[in-house]
């Protein structure tokens, strides 16, 4: 049973789905085909999750094939408690993206679906990769479909946003490559992640490599000050692009910290922890203020992502059990809630073609079901108790206060700012007097949209009310990570 390459199938199934798409011409059939493959991938992800052993900290479903033996490169994939969650998240958001783009993408539908499917493969591959070179190839490769999604199907300033996104991330990734090569040299001429984790690098090597990795991951997360690509990319991307960007791509930066910086470079992590905590705190508060100043719906949520990911990186670098579980859980939560928010905003944009907050008002009276979902996701983003965000933020805050009281205070201020901007957003958009729209009336969510929103809402309540399964899956892997961190500092 273990010999069946489940992970490879999970990774490549969407890519295989591209092949039939190449020969199709009917737009409706293309959409259904893409949906079929992504949904099948999702079911496969559920199956893998079911068969995952939540008590073991080691990598499971491991597959290892030598690729370039002379350079120590192999095709190695496997999942542990952390990556299985993100694999599941990616698979979940895949078919939701396809459904979200059902009616909003009207030109070059085939190419769009191909981009999404390829993205799915690459993203799941990144989370499963156990070889540094493989990881890097997939990490870099992800840029191209994303660049195309933003640059071809995006908004008015899409080219600027796409190029900005591409160059920013590429610059970071090139430094990441240098870091990988240093690790390769110092770690015994191998790219295998598991064996590199066991190597004890010298402090100076660790510090340099940490800084190199930091640039790449900080751009992806995004941390202050290299976050400015995010608002432009989000605003100009189509709905599906935003969902993937916010839901998955941002997590990869933090996943990079989790998988590489913390276990392989523990001494450097301890050394740079104050810097990281400082940058995270700045991101939390600064991101919050930025969100408050926005008049564009998507930009507001984009800046709120900066703030939320600040919480995540804060949790990662306080090095205690609660905060780490909170950070990983919050990554999952952010994928769900912010993905859901972008989905909701995208649905609204599909109807009215405006993203200005001032153009909306009194939606509760016109589209009550939509407003309920929108409100739910806003509350989840605000970390209201009962929703998933609360559990994550609570855990992170407990760790933050443990590290330093002022950090905790800043984090709490950030949480309050989140409440301020999300609530005032909800108030302007959903409550108050109705603002009439030029382009006809808005209609409430239908079946297709309801399915997407419901799928995400389920997780919001599930994690919010019964987070034990999720916390349980990641616990062994995080325990092992803490052990590796403990060897340093």
């Amino acid at each position, binding site marked *: 049973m273990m010999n069946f390459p489940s992970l490879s199938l999970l990774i490549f199934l969407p890519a295989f789905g591209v092949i039939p798409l190449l020969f199709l011409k009917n737009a409706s059939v293309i959409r259904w085909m893409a949906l079929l493959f992504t949904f099948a991938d999702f079911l496969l992800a559920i199956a893998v999750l079911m068969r995952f052993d939540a008590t073991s900290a080691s990598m499971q479903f491991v597959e290892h094939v030598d690729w370039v033996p002379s350079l120590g490169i192999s095709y190695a994939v496997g999942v542990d408690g952390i990556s299985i969650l993100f694999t599941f998240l990616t698979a979940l958001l895949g078919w939701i993206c396809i459904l979200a783009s059902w009616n909003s993408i009207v030109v070059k539908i085939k190419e769009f679906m191909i981009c999404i499917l390829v993205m799915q493969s690459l993203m799941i591959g990144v989370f499963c990769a156990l070889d540094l070179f493989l990881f890097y190839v997939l990490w870099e490769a992800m840029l191209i479909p994303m660049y195309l999604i933003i640059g071809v199907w995006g908004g008015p300033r899409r080219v600027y946003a796409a190029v*900005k996104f591409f*160059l*920013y991330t590429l610059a970071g990734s090139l430094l990441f490559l240098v870091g990988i090569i240093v690790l390769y040299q110092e770690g015994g001429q191998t790219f295998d992640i598991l064996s590199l984790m066991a190597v004890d690098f010298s402090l100076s090597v660790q510090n340099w490599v940490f800084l190199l990795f930091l640039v790449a991951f900080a751009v992806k997360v995004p941390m202050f*000050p290299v*976050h*400015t*690509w995010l608002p432009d990319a989000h605003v100009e991307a189509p709905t599906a692009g935003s969902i993937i960007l916010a839901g998955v791509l941002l997590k990869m930066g933090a996943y990079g910290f989790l998988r590489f910086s913390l276990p392989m470079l523990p001494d450097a992590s301890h050394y740079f922890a104050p810097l990281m905590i400082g940058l995270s705190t700045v991101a939390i508060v*600064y991101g919050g*203020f*930025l*969100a*408050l*100043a*926005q008049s564009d719906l998507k930009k507001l949520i984009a800046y709120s992502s900066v703030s939320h990911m600040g919480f995540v990186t804060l949790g990662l670098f306080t090095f205690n059990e609660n905060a780490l579980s909170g950070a990983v859980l919050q990554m999952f939560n952010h994928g769900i809630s912010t993905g859901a928010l972008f989905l909701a905003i995208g649905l609204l944009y599909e109807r009215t073609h405006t993203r200005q907050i001032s153009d909306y008002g009194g939606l509760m009276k016109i589209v009550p079901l939509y407003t309920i979902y929108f409100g739910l996701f806003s509350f989840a983003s605000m970390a209201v108790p009962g929703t998933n965000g609360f559990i994550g933020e609570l855990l992170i805050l407990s760790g933050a206060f443990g590290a330093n009281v002022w950090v905790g205070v800043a984090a709490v201020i950030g949480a309050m700012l989140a409440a*301020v901007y999300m609530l005032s957003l909800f108030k302007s958009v959903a409550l108050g007097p109705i603002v009439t729209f030029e382009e006809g009336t808005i209609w409430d969510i239908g079946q297709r949209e309801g399915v997407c929103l419901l799928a995400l809402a389920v997780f919001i309540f599930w994690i919010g009310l019964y987070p034990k399964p999720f916390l349980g899956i990641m616990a062994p892997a995080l325990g092992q990570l803490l052990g590796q961190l403990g060897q340093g500092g």
Partner: protein
Amino acid sequence: MIEWVHPGLIFVVAALILPLFNTALQKIGLLLVPIAAILSVAVMTTGTYGEFNFANVFLVIGKVDKLTLVFAWVFTFMAFIGSLYSLHIKETSQHVAAYLYIGSALGVVFAGDWFTLLVSWELMAFASAYLVFASRAEAATKAGFRYLLVHVTGGVMLFGGIVLHGLETGSFIFGPLTTESGQWGGLAFTLVLVSFLLNAAVPPLNAWLTDAYPEATVTGAVFLSAFTTKTAVYVLIRTFPGTEILVGLGVAMALYGVIYAVLENDCRRLLGYHIVSQVGYMVAGVGIGTEIALNGSSSHAFSHIIYKGLLFMGAGAVIQMTGRRKLTELGGLYRTMPWTVFLYMIGAFAISAFPFFSGFVSKSMVIAAAAGDGRAATVLLLTVASSGTFLHTGLKLPYYMFFGKDCGLRPSDPPLNMLLAMGIAAILCIGIGVFPNLLYALLPYQVDFVPYTAAHITGSLSILMFTAVGFVLLLKYLDPENTVSLDTDWFYRKGARLFMWFAENPVSWWEKIISNLSDTVILRLLARTARDSLNIDIKGVDAIVNGVAHAALRLGATARRLQTGIVTHYAAAMIFGLFVCITFYSLIWLE
């Protein structure tokens, strides 16, 4: 088969599913549900049921003994009568509220632990408040709020008392709180006692009853009259038997109610004061505390529920058919409402303790208990109150409502369901009077009391007849006047206005200062910081990024200019480069 069904649960579940049915099915349900409850009480045996642990507290929702059963019987009977009386009401919410009210009253009666009691108590307050609100008049809304306010205060006091009691004794099982000598007990004792006295409408905590009951709907008032005060009597019997102060309070109550009834013009408020008066008998019985006294309180509660319900039903019928409630505006209705008059008078005779009516066999038990305990003053004063009761409810009210000066209206008898309900209640009043042993068999303690002695009959009849004579002679002075009586609620009504002044002036002034601060300073600061952050982002960070990009473009543009296309320039560049390389190699590399 299920061992035991909580009758209250039957009503609560019915309340929740009633709105799902159409009108016809609802009517059938309204009749069947109380019958089902009556049957569940009929098959019930004594014992303790429904015990379970919930969040570290041991709950008992079904403690059944004889005292429980007697109240359960009368509550379920009244539920049937009231449901029949309100069958014509189309608003489902009133039925739902009534059933929740009855269900929670039964919850209190069956409660074996304090928390079940508290939850049911609170539910009673809210469900019954709805019955006041449901008349939808402005006065009703105001009265409903006062009612709710008073009961929530009582509920909070009860909660405080329960928690304190639980902390002191470590147990939440429902049981007597009395101290050995019947004297005052601590803070928990006081809080619980005050809360129970409030629900029993003991003066000075009685004003809510006479304020709210006249404003309730015609059918709602029937339910209200039956449950809240008698539930309070039940819990008093359970927790404070023999507490001395209750005797004095009960007697005072009995007289207080009767005196205020003299002044009353609104027919249902007059009946409300009579509730106060009659409950006084029950409270006094609890205070006396002997077995016969507690029997008396229970049996009086039983009879009172039935005949008071009948009186409220009669008055309610008049209000429904004429639209008027003041005695000054009524009169001469006997011509066209004969059945109502007849059935009302049965209730009036019952409350006045005429022989062969239910009041005779129950009220006298309390007085006999007082006599047996050696309390002469109590006996005397309660008998005076009896006389007053007949004067007002048996003589004044029907005279001015049905007979007397003709008001000119010719209303017909109320609908059949209301008459039937009144009829059933009347039959019960007479039935209990003629066959008292049926009631006595239900009472908690062994009954040695024999109501139909020659002395008793002659004594009662003589008092009643002299009262009637007095009524006839003093008729002129008893004319109702269109006045408003000041009762103890003056204090909290005025007090509320004072409190509102305080909230609207000093507190509000302070609040404006803080809000101003928040608006002018804090919110502006927040917005400023947000705008500044955005400027940092756009003009600072992004500027650097874009600047780098522009610099790269310009660098490229400059480098492009090197491609002049002229071959001699390229040749010169190559030679120059070769020269630099040779110099570099010879000077530095060879070192």
